[in-house]
């Protein structure tokens, strides 16, 4: 790695001030599993690395049946994977983190790091968006909240300003009779990036969210498919129509993992499968 200045701020204000002072040339460090790779491979440049691990209060993971789940900036993927609360109430998010890197990576990688990296194929994003997650942001100008589905502006790009940090993600508590699923499609079982990812959060005869990963510049909701299903009694024919709609709403590219036509086809297959399973789980 190239040399950089290194800081361990003790407060969010200090962290924001450092990020502001260095502009885009400072990088926040939490888990480091993306940042250090990108620094080593010179995909990203840092004159300054701001380690946020010494800031108190960012490590909390808590659940309340009314308020839902709160994930602090330092909560690792592994903590989500093994927590009995998330296993019970946020099973699609748990499915996603189980397929993120290795245990070694998950012991370091943070959920919020995965979010801020904004990879179109990031596994945690579809289930979090399907569950209606909201991010809390802290910056020099104060704090703000943004729904996760509006957080991304392109591959690797978000609404974050250079002096801002995401401090927490809040995920609403699941409604009764809700089924959740994340299906990841890759070329192998482990240590793989998603070729296509589909998350569904479905509440019987009520709201449904379908989120597609790795088939557009950002994770996207298949909104036309959602409209077909929301509040309706769902049967096989309706699932088929929704799957076809999701396929048409996806905008995949061709790359080393798959070509666009294959990805689009798989969106249909996986959406159908995910809807059926979410429906079974909700009943």
């Amino acid at each position, binding site marked *: 790695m190239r040399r950089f200045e*290194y800081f361990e701020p003790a407060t969010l204000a200090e962290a924001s001030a450092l990020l502001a002072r260095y502009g885009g040339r400072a990088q926040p460090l939490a888990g480091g599993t993306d940042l250090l790779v990108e620094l080593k491979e010179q995909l990203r440049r840092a004159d300054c690395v701001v*380690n946020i*691990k010494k800031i108190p209060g960012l490590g909390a993971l808590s659940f309340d049946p009314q308020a839902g789940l709160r994930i602090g900036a330092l909560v690792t993927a592994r903590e989500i994977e093994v927590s009995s609360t998330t296993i019970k109430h946020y099973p699609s998010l748990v499915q996603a983190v189980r397929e993120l890197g290795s*245990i070694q990576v998950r*012991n370091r990688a943070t959920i919020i790091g995965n979010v801020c990296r904004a990879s179109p194929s990031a596994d945690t994003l579809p289930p979090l968006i399907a569950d209606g997650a909201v991010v809390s942001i802290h910056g020099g100008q104060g704090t703000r909240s943004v729904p996760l589905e509006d957080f991304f502006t392109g591959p690797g790009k978000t609404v974050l300003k250079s002096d801002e940090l995401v401090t927490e993600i809040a995920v609403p508590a699941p409604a009764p009779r809700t089924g959740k699923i994340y299906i990841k499609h890759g070329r192998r079982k482990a240590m793989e990036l998603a070729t296509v990812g589909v998350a569904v959060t479905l509440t019987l005869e009520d709201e449904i969210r379908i989120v597609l990963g790795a088939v557009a510049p950002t994770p996207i909701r298949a909104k036309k498919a959602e409209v077909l299903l929301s509040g309706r009694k769902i049967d096989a024919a309706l699932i088929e129509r929704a799957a076809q709609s999701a396929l048409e709403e996806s905008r995949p590219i061709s790359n080393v993992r798959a070509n666009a036509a294959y990805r689009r086809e798989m969106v249909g297959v996986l959406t159908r499968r995910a809807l059926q399973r979410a429906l079974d789980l909700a009943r």
Partner: protein
Amino acid sequence: MKKISLTLNGEKRELELEPWRSLLDALRNEAGLTGTKKGCDVGDCGACTVLVDGKPLNSCLMLGVEADGHEVVTIEGIEHPLQEQFIRLGGAQCGFCTPGMIVMAKALLDENPNPSEDEIRFGIAGNICRCTGYTKIVEAIQAAAEEMRK
């Protein structure tokens, strides 16, 4: 340079590190512990796996200075039936993945003394071996687990 103090294989140690050095380089070049291997250096191969506060992680993806105040265990600090069983059952061939593999397997057995084959394969998914085809490694971990339970 930043001075850090850590517990390394049970001993208090002080190291002076440049902040941009990985924990892996700090262990190998500053602490003189070359058992931990550098394979890919980007978190894909698992050869550099060490325990930090009991948790397995890739030491190439952690800054050395982040180990300040923490407890690090490398292959040199592990004495476990795994080592004998890897030798006995051919779980080590060229040997390059073996230190990371054993550190990971120890972490796995500490958490789950009786893992199924699927749980072992899931557990070592981040440790790449190009010699054994994994079967002998899985068998060695199973044999060590059995020995531990006796």
